[in-house]
């Protein structure tokens, strides 16, 4: 028998999945996508049969759906040349030395602690946070809150999981949600019981599992009646990955009187295609808030949406995009008013620099019978030089009665007057521009927890100096 290279199965692997990989079996992460790979992923995770079937069905859908012809240019993605599943141990095979210098420099400049840097760079998992995570878990468990990774949730809470998984974003929703459903791995699962308020924001990187930064993460949040939770994913420091495609799906259910806030700060390295489907269902008098910041990636296409299902539901999207050289941020939001007396707002702020392109793309849909709805969209774009580009594509479909709909957008450069004012007070030009940009996105930063806001401001400063990316 030919010598088969042995796979280093991480010790945690056994604990996590509770089975032993027979010696003769070699799970090698293959490139490309076919039913066998999907079956293997499901088998490796020891998933129930319904999930395996769902994955296979999604793969079919993914294959049948055409590539979107609108938005950013996606023709360069080679689906056959992508690893669709990597074990955690494979992921950490990189070393600190392999990282591109600019990423390392950014960590230095941002003042990210050494251990955290390695985690962000995908070099190691963040074991340091284990303690914090455990004490948090105790408190949450007391309240009946479930906060875990999505794979564990499928294993430990199968009924709850099956009831909601894929109900907000079915596999056939779009090509990339089908892809995600076929090969998903990692992500967060949160269940907040009736009337429970989770006071501290739950952050993805509290969890020790390295997979939460995965390519095809799958997040499911269920806020039961009258509950509240704030979930934060990502961070301001650039996340280095060699994977070129990131296609996550986030599903949220906000029941009667509940409120959910989901904050994302995404700063993928600039080789990444970031194609994410995020959607929430808000029921009677519930509130869903997306706070969405997009800084990194080569191409981002992301339109967090809220389906306003019952009267009194409220949806809110606050989005910031920063596109530097070679980047295209195609972001925005969608508000689907299904029930009467629902309200929504979308606020978008975008900044383009050094030939970058930002596009706002939004959709307000008000179904027949969803009377007395109100919706307001405001987009502001700042162009920092004459190589950059900004587009606004708002789509509005109103089929109901007595609806008030407003849309406003402005595109401008840094105002000469503001610049003059600051410079006349002895502030150098570069610094003055940075201050103006920070002021421009202030409605966004003030919605962030303090440490994130500080980091974001620092990052904008770096981007403005042109020392990064």
């Amino acid at each position: 028998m030919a010598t088969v290279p042995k796979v280093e199965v991480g010790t945690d692997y056994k604990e996590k999945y509770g089975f032993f990989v027979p010696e003769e079996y070699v799970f090698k992460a293959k490139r490309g996508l076919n039913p066998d790979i999907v079956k293997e992923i499901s088998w490796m995770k020891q998933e129930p049969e319904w999930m395996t079937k769902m994955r296979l069905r999604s793969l079919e859908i993914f294959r049948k759906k055409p590539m979107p012809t609108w938005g950013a240019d996606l023709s360069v993605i080679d689906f056959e040349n992508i690893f669709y599943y990597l074990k955690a141990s494979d992921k950490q095979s990189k070393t600190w030395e392999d990282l591109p210098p600019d990423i390392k420099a950014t960590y230095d400049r941002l003042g990210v602690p050494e251990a955290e840097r390695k985690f962000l760079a995908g070099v190691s998992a963040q074991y340091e946070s284990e303690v914090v995570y455990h004490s948090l878990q105790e408190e949450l468990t007391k309240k009946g809150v479930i906060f875990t990774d999505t794979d564990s949730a499928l294993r430990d809470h199968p009924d709850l999981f099956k009831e909601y998984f894929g109900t907000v974003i079915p596999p056939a929703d779009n090509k990339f949600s089908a892809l995600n459903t076929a090969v998903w791995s990692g992500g967060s699962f949160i269940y907040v019981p009736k009337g429970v308020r989770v006071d501290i924001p739950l952050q993805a990187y509290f969890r020790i599992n390295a997979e939460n930064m995965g390519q095809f993460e799958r997040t499911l949040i269920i806020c039961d009646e009258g509950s509240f939770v704030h979930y934060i994913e990502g961070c301001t420091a650039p996340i280095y990955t060699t994977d070129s495609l990131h296609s996550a799906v986030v599903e949220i259910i906000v029941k009667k009187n509940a409120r959910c806030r989901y904050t994302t700060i995404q700063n993928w390295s600039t080789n990444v295609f970031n194609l994410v489907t995020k959607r929430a269902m808000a029921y009677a008098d519930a509130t869903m808030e997306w706070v969405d910041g997009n800084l990194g990636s080569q191409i981002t296409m992301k339109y967090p949406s809220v389906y306003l299902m019952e009267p009194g539901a409220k949806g809110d999207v606050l989005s910031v995009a920063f596109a530097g050289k070679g980047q295209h941020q195609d972001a925005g939001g969608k508000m689907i008013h299904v029930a009467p007396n629902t309200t929504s707002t979308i606020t978008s702020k975008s900044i383009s620099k050094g030939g970058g392109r930002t596009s706002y793309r939004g959709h307000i849909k008000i179904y027949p019978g969803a009377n007395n709805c109100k919706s307001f969209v405001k987009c502001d774009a700042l162009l920092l030089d004459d190589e950059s580009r900004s587009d606004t594509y708002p789509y509005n479909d109103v089929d109901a009665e007595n609806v008030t709909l407003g849309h406003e957008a402005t595109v401008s450069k840094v105002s000469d007057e503001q610049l003059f004012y600051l410079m006349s007070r002895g502030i150098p030009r570069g610094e003055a521009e940075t201050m103006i940009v920070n002021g421009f996105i202030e409605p966004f930063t003030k919605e962030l927890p303090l440490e994130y806001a500080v980091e974001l401001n620092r990052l904008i400063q770096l981007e403005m100096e042109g020392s990064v990316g």
Partner: protein
Amino acid sequence: MVSTEAPLEDLIFRGEPDWLRENRRSALESYQRLPAPSKTDEEWRRTDVSRLDPSAFSRFEKAPAHTTMATNLPKGVILESLPVAARDYAELVQPRLFSLAQAHRDRFTALQAALFTGGIFLYVPDGVEIDEPITGRHFSHESGTTVQPHTLIVAGKNSKFNYLDEYIAEHDDEAGYRSGSTEIFLGEGSQVGYVAVQKWGRNVWHFSDQRAELGKDATLRLFNVTLGGKFSKTRVEASLAGEGSNAELKAIYFASGEQFFDFHTLQEHRVGNTRSDLLFKGALQDVSRTVYAGLIRIEKHAARSDAYQANRNLVLSDKAKATSIPMLEIDNNDVRCTHGATVGPVDPEHLFYLRSRGITEATAKRMLIQGFFGDVLDRIPFEHARKLVEAELESRIG
């Protein structure tokens, strides 16, 4: 439309120069070749033409299609029927006709280029100013016919004049296929006021392209009024091709009954130091529907451009529906662009205020509609047209 070539030759091609006949034939080929607009095409996603069969209206009207009214035209000004001008002033007409409206753009512009009937050509030489507005009136007399007038306006350097196109149906309940397209070429420093008032019958299909190209320091004040048709699709497009040019594009529409109006606008800033200002205001009654989609495009080197775009819809009935899609594509940073769109009912507070002063609900509503249109009516470039539009609107608000 018409199956054999012979009747066409007889009906409308007769007496026309070879180049025009050739253009018409090629446009007709495009019409037959081009696919029907599909629902997946963004421009037609909300605009349903699947029930339109232009060949159902293959008759042309025999009565004169248009008259022009102008007094004391200065020397050198040409005001002529388009087919005659194509023969007598080919050097002016040939390079321009359908160069802006783009005969092969879609089925309907192709049909317009192939079968335009009559139409008006206006040429105002360099430096000529005309005080009195020139009026072109286009008529339809019968149901079931096709009427496709086309206006071509050429403004010489530093010329200055106002022009009004009126599209008039003899009977308000006429059905048929109608158009009313206009191409305006503005020479350096020219100032043109253009008003189009569309009052075709309430059962017609109407397609129109109004497109202008502005040279250096030219100023266009365009005003579109859409009232007629069961289906009306209008494109209003200004191409700012010369530095210092300035386009003001305004429109009002009043839709009632089962009317459907579609407006697509383009403010194309091709060079720097240009300005465009667009305001489309509409009121909707009954079960009418309107679609507005506008685009501001600022090209790479068009620095110091200033563009404004707004669409305001007043929805007077619970069953009426207005869709508004204002878009921007900005490729230069040294610009100022603002756009806005609103769709909403009459403000209940305004209504309450008037009611509390003893004004009946119907009167109060009428006053609010008049007020809504008031600021844009003031922008109609000349008195004659303003009075006409005010009277038309008055009779419809009722």
